């Protein structure tokens, strides 16, 4: 009886980080801040990556970056560089590192880390302004990161 409930608990906890998925705390960075291994173990979907990049509640990349390929999404920002040609400038591993935690590529960059769950000052419960009630989730899931990496890799000039 006890063994059954334990097995169930393990299965539930394991569900969030399925086989092949790298947890935010376990991401391996190169010296230059790149991430060689896929975070999800599943190939990225560039079409979904474009949606994540242009959606305010997801990546919202356009808040700071202009992206010609997302011209149908209104109001692109000017805080970061244009993402046009990102697929020429960066390797897949470098793009993954930039999304996961750009501060390890560019020290002090304003860009948020999209796959990081600790080491924050006064982290909140999303946009409520209140303290979190449990562990933080990363801003994007492992698969969403992979999808955006796949999308950015298509941006060639």
């Amino acid at each position, binding site marked *: 009886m006890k063994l059954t409930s334990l097995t169930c608990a393990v299965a539930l906890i394991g569900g969030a980080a399925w086989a092949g998925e790298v947890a935010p705390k376990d991401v391996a960075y190169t010296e230059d801040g790149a991430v060689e291994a896929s975070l999800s173990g599943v190939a990225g979907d560039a079409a979904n990556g474009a949606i994540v990049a242009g959606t305010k509640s997801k990546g919202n990349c356009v808040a700071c970056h202009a992206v010609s390929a997302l011209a149908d999404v209104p109001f692109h920002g000017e805080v970061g560089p244009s993402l046009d040609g990102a697929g020429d400038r960066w390797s897949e591993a470098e793009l993954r590192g930039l999304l996961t935690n750009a501060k390890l590529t560019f020290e002090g960059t304003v860009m948020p880390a999209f796959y990081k769950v600790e080491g*924050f000052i006064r*982290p*909140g419960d999303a946009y409520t*302004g209140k303290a979190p009630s449990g562990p933080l989730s990363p*801003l994007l899931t492992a698969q969403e990161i992979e999808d955006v990496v796949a999308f950015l890799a298509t941006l060639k000039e």
Partner: protein
Amino acid sequence: MTKPMGKTLTAIALAAVAFGTVASADESASLVVNGDIEMVTRTAAPAHLSDSLDEVISGWVFRSDETQELQMDDFDNPGMIFVDQALEQWEMVEGTKDKSCASCHGDVEESMAGVRAVYPKWNDSQEKVYTMAMQINDCREMGMGADKWKYTGGKMAAMEALISVQSRGMPVNVAIDGPAEATWEMGKELYYTRTGQLELSCANCHEDNYGNMIRADHLSQGQINGFPTYRLKNAKLNTVHARFKGCVRDTRAETFKPGSDDFVALELYVASRGNGLSVEGPSVRN
């Protein structure tokens, strides 16, 4: 550090032509309210900012032509309605001591002229830096025997607007040395602290990226010389601490409380970044 503001300057020049006054489309063009009160909207940065900014710029400069125009005439400025309401409040006797603001302070136009420009300021008897809101609530509780107001509430914002109007056009001039220095340093540290899951400091947006668009928002320097501010977004007067709270919340952080020591310190520091700009409150923003 000077950013192009061509469109805005053109609008000012056109407005000036309409009023029959002479103005050239240069970067020193300024906001004139009611054709009378000349506002300094751009000026040399105060000495304590010499390492980070050359010029300090009012948030008014960053707003659209339509929003800017709303602040150029008090009949168009929706914030002035609350000034009228607060003027009635000024005369209203309340509390166990049967007093109004006017009982002690008389004519608001005389007694409150210049006050907004120097707040937050050191309070000798309380031995800490006081914001206007703290002083107003001390008056209500101790002077009038009345209930204090909510720090960011409508009555507080309106009274702050009434007091600010008496200083419109005067340069912000908060003291950052002497007994206020420790609080100012605390506020400065908070200004540069990257909070929340987005790890953003005030400086990331308002010092490093003012003038840039973030999605559909034109980032300003985050100056508070125009507070309280009537925002078209929520159609009411907004206090400084309510705005701070919204900004910190948007970094996905646990915010500080309005009226907290942290926000009082931050208000002193941010106010000091606007030393030299005109008191504009109540200003109009989006």
